[in-house]
Protein backbone atom coordinates (compact mmCIF):
# COMPACT_ATOMS: atom_id res chain seq x y z
CA UNK A 1 0.00 0.00 0.00
CA UNK A 2 1.19 3.52 -0.78
CA UNK A 3 -0.24 6.82 0.44
CA UNK A 4 -1.01 9.91 -1.63
CA UNK A 5 -2.29 13.33 -0.74
CA UNK A 6 -4.81 14.85 -3.15
CA UNK A 7 -7.69 17.33 -3.37
CA UNK A 8 -11.20 16.18 -4.18
CA UNK A 9 -14.06 18.22 -5.54
CA UNK A 10 -16.56 19.01 -2.77
CA UNK A 11 -19.34 16.94 -4.33
CA UNK A 12 -17.04 13.90 -4.64
CA UNK A 13 -15.80 14.30 -1.09
CA UNK A 14 -19.37 14.56 0.26
CA UNK A 15 -20.41 11.44 -1.68
CA UNK A 16 -17.34 9.59 -0.42
CA UNK A 17 -18.22 10.46 3.21
CA UNK A 18 -21.85 9.55 2.67
CA UNK A 19 -21.14 6.12 1.16
CA UNK A 20 -18.41 5.39 3.67
CA UNK A 21 -20.74 6.16 6.61
CA UNK A 22 -23.82 4.53 5.11
CA UNK A 23 -22.11 1.29 4.17
CA UNK A 24 -19.39 1.20 6.78
CA UNK A 25 -16.67 0.92 4.13
CA UNK A 26 -13.31 2.65 4.55
CA UNK A 27 -12.72 5.62 2.25
CA UNK A 28 -9.45 4.23 0.89
CA UNK A 29 -11.30 1.05 -0.17
CA UNK A 30 -13.90 3.08 -2.09
CA UNK A 31 -11.18 5.15 -3.79
CA UNK A 32 -9.21 2.03 -4.72
CA UNK A 33 -12.34 0.39 -6.15
CA UNK A 34 -13.20 3.54 -8.10
CA UNK A 35 -9.69 3.75 -9.54
CA UNK A 36 -9.75 0.08 -10.50
CA UNK A 37 -13.08 0.61 -12.24
CA UNK A 38 -11.68 3.66 -14.07
CA UNK A 39 -8.53 1.81 -15.20
CA UNK A 40 -10.59 -1.14 -16.41
CA UNK A 41 -12.76 1.24 -18.41
CA UNK A 42 -9.65 2.73 -20.03
CA UNK A 43 -8.55 -0.79 -20.99
CA UNK A 44 -11.96 -1.51 -22.51
CA UNK A 45 -12.28 1.82 -24.28
CA UNK A 46 -8.93 3.40 -25.21
CA UNK A 47 -8.41 6.89 -23.82
CA UNK A 48 -8.52 8.55 -27.24
CA UNK A 49 -12.14 7.44 -27.58
CA UNK A 50 -13.23 9.16 -24.38
CA UNK A 51 -14.38 12.74 -24.84
CA UNK A 52 -13.02 15.12 -22.25
CA UNK A 53 -15.31 17.48 -20.33
CA UNK A 54 -15.38 21.05 -21.56
CA UNK A 55 -14.36 23.74 -19.10
CA UNK A 56 -14.38 27.31 -20.35
CA UNK A 57 -14.12 30.71 -18.74
CA UNK A 58 -17.07 33.06 -18.45
CA UNK A 59 -15.36 35.52 -20.83
CA UNK A 60 -14.78 32.78 -23.39
CA UNK A 61 -18.43 31.81 -23.23
CA UNK A 62 -19.47 35.41 -23.85
CA UNK A 63 -17.06 35.57 -26.81
CA UNK A 64 -18.58 32.41 -28.29
CA UNK A 65 -22.11 33.74 -28.01
CA UNK A 66 -21.13 37.08 -29.57
CA UNK A 67 -19.02 35.58 -32.37
CA UNK A 68 -21.50 32.88 -33.42
CA UNK A 69 -23.20 34.15 -36.60
CA UNK A 70 -25.13 32.39 -39.38
CA UNK A 71 -23.11 31.67 -42.52
CA UNK A 72 -24.55 31.34 -46.03
CA UNK A 73 -23.67 27.63 -46.03
CA UNK A 74 -25.54 27.10 -42.76
CA UNK A 75 -28.59 28.94 -44.09
CA UNK A 76 -28.56 26.84 -47.27
CA UNK A 77 -28.08 23.62 -45.27
CA UNK A 78 -31.00 24.29 -42.96
CA UNK A 79 -33.42 25.63 -45.55
CA UNK A 80 -32.84 23.18 -48.43
CA UNK A 81 -35.41 20.42 -48.47
Amino acid at each position, binding site marked *: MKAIYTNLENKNFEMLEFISNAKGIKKNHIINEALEYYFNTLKTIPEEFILKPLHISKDEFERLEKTSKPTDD*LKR*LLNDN
Partner: protein
Amino acid sequence: MIIEKLSKNHKREDFDCGNNFLNDFLKKYAYQNQIRYLVGVTYVAHIENVVIGYITISASSIKRVSIDNKKPYDDLPVLRVGRLAIDKEYQHKSIGKLLLKFAIKKAIELKENYGCIGIVVDAKEEAKKFYKKYGFIEINTLQKSLTTPMYLSIKTIKESLQ
Protein backbone atom coordinates in the same frame (compact mmCIF):
# COMPACT_ATOMS: atom_id res chain seq x y z
CA MET B 1 -29.66 6.43 -48.45
CA ILE B 2 -31.17 6.18 -44.96
CA ILE B 3 -29.95 7.70 -41.69
CA GLU B 4 -30.85 5.72 -38.58
CA LYS B 5 -29.51 4.57 -35.24
CA LEU B 6 -26.70 2.01 -35.45
CA SER B 7 -27.92 -1.56 -34.95
CA LYS B 8 -26.52 -5.07 -35.31
CA ASN B 9 -28.03 -5.27 -38.81
CA HIS B 10 -25.74 -2.61 -40.18
CA LYS B 11 -22.69 -3.86 -42.06
CA ARG B 12 -19.62 -1.94 -41.01
CA GLU B 13 -16.75 -4.43 -41.46
CA ASP B 14 -15.60 -2.83 -44.74
CA PHE B 15 -16.07 0.79 -43.67
CA ASP B 16 -12.97 2.82 -44.52
CA CYS B 17 -12.92 6.58 -44.16
CA GLY B 18 -9.13 6.76 -44.46
CA ASN B 19 -8.62 7.27 -40.72
CA ASN B 20 -7.94 4.14 -38.65
CA PHE B 21 -9.04 5.80 -35.44
CA LEU B 22 -12.50 6.56 -36.85
CA ASN B 23 -12.73 3.16 -38.59
CA ASP B 24 -11.89 1.35 -35.34
CA PHE B 25 -14.36 3.40 -33.40
CA LEU B 26 -17.23 2.35 -35.67
CA LYS B 27 -16.20 -1.29 -35.89
CA LYS B 28 -15.21 -1.94 -32.27
CA TYR B 29 -16.65 0.65 -29.92
CA ALA B 30 -19.65 2.55 -31.32
CA TYR B 31 -22.25 -0.15 -30.68
CA GLN B 32 -20.71 -1.04 -27.32
CA ASN B 33 -20.80 2.64 -26.27
CA GLN B 34 -24.43 2.80 -27.25
CA ILE B 35 -25.86 -0.30 -25.61
CA ARG B 36 -23.44 -1.12 -22.81
CA TYR B 37 -21.97 2.15 -21.61
CA LEU B 38 -24.88 4.40 -22.72
CA VAL B 39 -22.45 7.25 -23.39
CA GLY B 40 -23.37 8.19 -26.93
CA VAL B 41 -25.54 7.21 -29.85
CA THR B 42 -24.22 6.55 -33.33
CA TYR B 43 -26.40 7.26 -36.32
CA VAL B 44 -25.35 5.71 -39.59
CA ALA B 45 -25.99 6.68 -43.18
CA HIS B 46 -26.43 3.42 -45.06
CA ILE B 47 -27.41 1.96 -48.39
CA GLU B 48 -29.07 -1.43 -48.05
CA ASN B 49 -27.59 -1.72 -44.56
CA VAL B 50 -24.01 -1.09 -45.71
CA VAL B 51 -22.68 1.82 -43.65
CA ILE B 52 -21.30 4.67 -45.76
CA GLY B 53 -21.03 7.27 -43.01
CA TYR B 54 -21.73 7.85 -39.34
CA ILE B 55 -22.11 10.48 -36.68
CA THR B 56 -21.89 9.94 -32.92
CA ILE B 57 -23.80 12.30 -30.66
CA SER B 58 -24.42 12.64 -26.95
CA ALA B 59 -26.05 15.04 -24.53
CA SER B 60 -23.24 16.93 -22.85
CA SER B 61 -22.48 20.22 -21.17
CA ILE B 62 -20.05 23.09 -21.16
CA LYS B 63 -18.85 23.88 -17.68
CA ARG B 64 -18.57 27.64 -17.35
CA VAL B 65 -15.84 28.30 -14.84
CA SER B 66 -15.03 31.35 -12.79
CA ILE B 67 -11.45 32.40 -13.51
CA ASP B 68 -10.77 33.35 -9.87
CA ASN B 69 -11.33 30.01 -8.19
CA LYS B 70 -11.64 27.69 -11.20
CA LYS B 71 -14.76 26.13 -9.68
CA PRO B 72 -17.52 25.21 -12.12
CA TYR B 73 -20.62 27.22 -11.31
CA ASP B 74 -22.68 26.64 -14.36
CA ASP B 75 -23.40 23.60 -16.51
CA LEU B 76 -24.73 24.60 -19.90
CA PRO B 77 -26.42 21.79 -21.85
CA VAL B 78 -25.16 21.10 -25.38
CA LEU B 79 -25.39 18.38 -27.98
CA ARG B 80 -21.92 16.96 -28.57
CA VAL B 81 -20.80 15.51 -31.88
CA GLY B 82 -17.96 13.19 -31.01
CA ARG B 83 -17.20 11.80 -34.45
CA LEU B 84 -18.33 12.14 -38.01
CA ALA B 85 -16.84 10.03 -40.79
CA ILE B 86 -17.65 9.10 -44.37
CA ASP B 87 -16.42 6.08 -46.30
CA LYS B 88 -13.75 7.03 -48.88
CA GLU B 89 -15.96 5.94 -51.79
CA TYR B 90 -18.69 8.36 -50.71
CA GLN B 91 -16.65 11.39 -49.68
CA HIS B 92 -17.40 14.75 -51.38
CA LYS B 93 -20.98 13.66 -52.04
CA SER B 94 -22.61 15.82 -49.36
CA ILE B 95 -23.19 12.92 -46.95
CA GLY B 96 -21.23 14.64 -44.17
CA LYS B 97 -23.37 17.70 -44.72
CA LEU B 98 -26.56 15.61 -44.34
CA LEU B 99 -25.29 13.97 -41.17
CA LEU B 100 -24.45 17.40 -39.76
CA LYS B 101 -27.94 18.63 -40.65
CA PHE B 102 -29.32 15.56 -38.88
CA ALA B 103 -27.33 16.47 -35.73
CA ILE B 104 -28.53 20.08 -35.89
CA LYS B 105 -32.14 18.84 -35.98
CA LYS B 106 -31.42 16.67 -32.94
CA ALA B 107 -30.02 19.74 -31.14
CA ILE B 108 -33.24 21.63 -31.90
CA GLU B 109 -35.28 18.70 -30.53
CA LEU B 110 -33.08 18.64 -27.43
CA LYS B 111 -33.56 22.38 -26.96
CA GLU B 112 -37.33 22.08 -27.25
CA ASN B 113 -37.67 19.11 -24.92
CA TYR B 114 -34.90 19.41 -22.35
CA GLY B 115 -32.87 22.56 -22.99
CA CYS B 116 -29.77 22.97 -25.17
CA ILE B 117 -27.73 26.07 -25.92
CA GLY B 118 -25.82 24.75 -28.94
CA ILE B 119 -23.74 22.05 -30.57
CA VAL B 120 -20.12 21.24 -29.80
CA VAL B 121 -18.08 19.18 -32.24
CA ASP B 122 -14.70 17.66 -31.45
CA ALA B 123 -13.00 18.45 -34.74
CA LYS B 124 -9.85 16.90 -36.06
CA GLU B 125 -7.43 19.36 -37.70
CA GLU B 126 -8.48 18.40 -41.23
CA ALA B 127 -12.20 18.80 -40.43
CA LYS B 128 -12.04 22.31 -38.95
CA LYS B 129 -12.59 23.97 -42.34
CA PHE B 130 -15.76 21.93 -42.90
CA TYR B 131 -17.28 23.02 -39.60
CA LYS B 132 -16.17 26.66 -39.97
CA LYS B 133 -18.13 26.81 -43.21
CA TYR B 134 -21.29 26.10 -41.21
CA GLY B 135 -20.58 28.73 -38.58
CA PHE B 136 -18.81 26.67 -35.91
CA ILE B 137 -16.21 28.62 -33.95
CA GLU B 138 -13.22 27.25 -32.06
CA ILE B 139 -13.54 27.07 -28.28
CA ASN B 140 -10.60 28.00 -26.09
CA THR B 141 -11.03 25.46 -23.32
CA LEU B 142 -9.16 25.44 -20.03
CA GLN B 143 -7.78 21.96 -20.68
CA LYS B 144 -5.89 20.37 -23.57
CA SER B 145 -7.50 17.89 -25.91
CA LEU B 146 -6.48 15.79 -28.91
CA THR B 147 -9.21 17.45 -30.99
CA THR B 148 -10.41 21.05 -31.30
CA PRO B 149 -13.82 21.68 -29.74
CA MET B 150 -15.96 23.96 -31.92
CA TYR B 151 -19.28 25.58 -31.07
CA LEU B 152 -22.45 26.57 -32.91
CA SER B 153 -25.16 28.24 -30.83
CA ILE B 154 -28.86 27.42 -31.03
CA LYS B 155 -29.42 31.17 -31.41
CA THR B 156 -27.38 31.11 -34.64
CA ILE B 157 -29.24 28.02 -35.84
CA LYS B 158 -32.57 29.75 -35.22
CA GLU B 159 -31.41 32.88 -37.04
CA SER B 160 -30.45 30.72 -40.03
CA LEU B 161 -33.86 29.09 -40.32
CA GLN B 162 -36.23 30.90 -42.66
